[in-house]
């Protein structure tokens, strides 16, 4: 479904991503792991178009999407969440998600009808599926940290993505919130048939939910394989899990 081939990106001579490879098949949950600074977030930014790669090729559903602007990539069916809560802090929770739905259905240039007439059901359904229905009228900037992270994912759902990219969805969450979010991700993958690509520091989470794991180190791809294969790989043990 998604194929990243030999992609590189430099910042002022620093090779943040240096020949990364990744493939994601339909219906899978794929995790990207690696130490801090390994280039996980940069890789995600390259896939979703926030950054343009210096070299390499990214294809989605057989179509090349390398260096397309983010809004075009989104329309192809890739939605993402961000590591820091990247929400619309002055709008209500409801509007936060509705904006994404409006964009997905190409209605955001409508000038004459009130927004209140558009996609109320669709937006409500998303709010309910992530458990924010009772907070729909609150200003997003006033939400708790955990709720903001959930809203972050919910906005991405407004785009009805085929591939959902989650950049550290549980960063800064309490253990209970983490468990709740992981359950949510699993449920979304099952009920909506979503393909999910995510990165995460919590190894229990990673090995618990993923079908495939890709390991990065200093911008390179060390290995991509099943959790078993990754666990037993000597390179990974040396570089990341630590030799015992």
């Amino acid at each position: 479904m998604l194929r990243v081939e030999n992609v590189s990106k430099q910042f002022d001579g620093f090779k943040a991503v240096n020949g990364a490879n990744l493939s994601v098949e339909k219906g899978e949950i794929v995790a990207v792991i690696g130490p801090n600074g390994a280039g996980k977030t940069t890789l995600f930014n390259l896939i979703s178009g926030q950054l343009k790669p210096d070299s390499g090729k990214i294809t989605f559903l057989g179509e090349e999407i390398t260096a397309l602007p983010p809004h075009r990539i989104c329309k192809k069916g890739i939605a993402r969440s961000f590591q820091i809560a990247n929400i619309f802090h002055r709008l209500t929770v409801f509007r936060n998600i509705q904006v994404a739905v409006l964009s997905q259905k190409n209605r955001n240039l409508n000038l004459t009808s009130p927004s209140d007439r558009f996609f109320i059901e669709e937006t409500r359904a998303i709010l309910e599926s992530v458990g924010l229905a009772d907070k729909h009228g609150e200003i997003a900037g006033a939400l708790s940290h955990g709720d903001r992270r959930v809203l972050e994912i919910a906005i991405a759902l407004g785009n009805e993505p085929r591939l959902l990219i989650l950049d550290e969805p549980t960063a800064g969450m309490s253990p209970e919130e983490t468990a709740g979010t992981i359950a949510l991700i699993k449920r979304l993958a099952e009920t909506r048939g979503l393909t999910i690509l995510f990165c995460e520091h919590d190894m229990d989470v990673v090995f618990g939910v993923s079908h495939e794991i890709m390991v990065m180190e200093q911008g390179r791809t060390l290995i991509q394989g099943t959790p078993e294969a990754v666990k037993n790989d000597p390179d990974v043990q040396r570089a990341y899990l630590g030799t015992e």
Partner: protein
Amino acid sequence: MNALNLKRLGPGAAILVAAAVVPSIVPRFYTYILAVILITALLAMSLNMVVGHGGLYQFHHGVFYGVGAYTVALMLTKTPLPWWVGFVAGPFTAALMGFLIGLFCVRLNRLYFGMIQISLGSLIWALTFRWYGLTGGDDGIHGIPVPDVLSGVTRSYYVILIVFSVCLFFLYRIYRSPFGTTLRAIRDNPERCAAIGINVRRHQLFAIVIATFFAGVAGVLFVVVEQSVFPDLMFWVLSLEIMIMCLLGGWFTFSGPILGAALMVSLRTFAGVYTEYWTLILGVILILLIFFLPEGIMGYLSTKRKQKNGRRTVE
């Protein structure tokens, strides 16, 4: 639902009725001031659409007001075309100018947007100021032959009131529309908007074109009431003043700029009678504003109201 609508529309309707009977009660001078307030309010609202709701640093918005006014002035004085052609051409020329300048501006972010906007705007001002042959330079154009149906203080006041109300209606529709919602989302977070599939630059350019169109309408109305134009209409000081009106009234609100315009025009008129240094008073007000009401008067009031009512259902 109906009671809610009534409650919401009630004050607006009352103001409209009051505005309609004003010329028969107050002296002509006050009618004139009220007309100026309406024009300025329309100009400030058009600016607020891009600044307050769009988050764009449109520093030199006054230029489009001037372009609208000059278009009418030139067409009425230099061409044999019927008067209404000039009146229609004013806003469209302003919007075209907005489009051309916006095309450069939306490629840049934040302050850089503002800097190129103010330079390109100043270019238009300089052209107007220097091109004696066409624009009359710093003399401007006076005695513009506005048709009789529109001239005279009372008649021009009613024309302005009607045009203002129609514009207000459309601006409110746009504010509430998916376009407006998306524009406010872009203000809050342009990066995220791009990530949810919105063509941010196109949306911003579209907003600039609409806003400059309404600034052009305000420029046309200026000619109706003053029957003259001069380069100060495009000078950056005016652009700064309307920016202050938005801040004063509340730039995250819809109706704030009307209040801001009313206060500023009144201050200029009535404090200006007593002292040339009325801007000194303005300065003090601004400092107080920044410290105590950073979201403007309407912003403050709506926050208070929200706290009283508990949380709202829909934005």
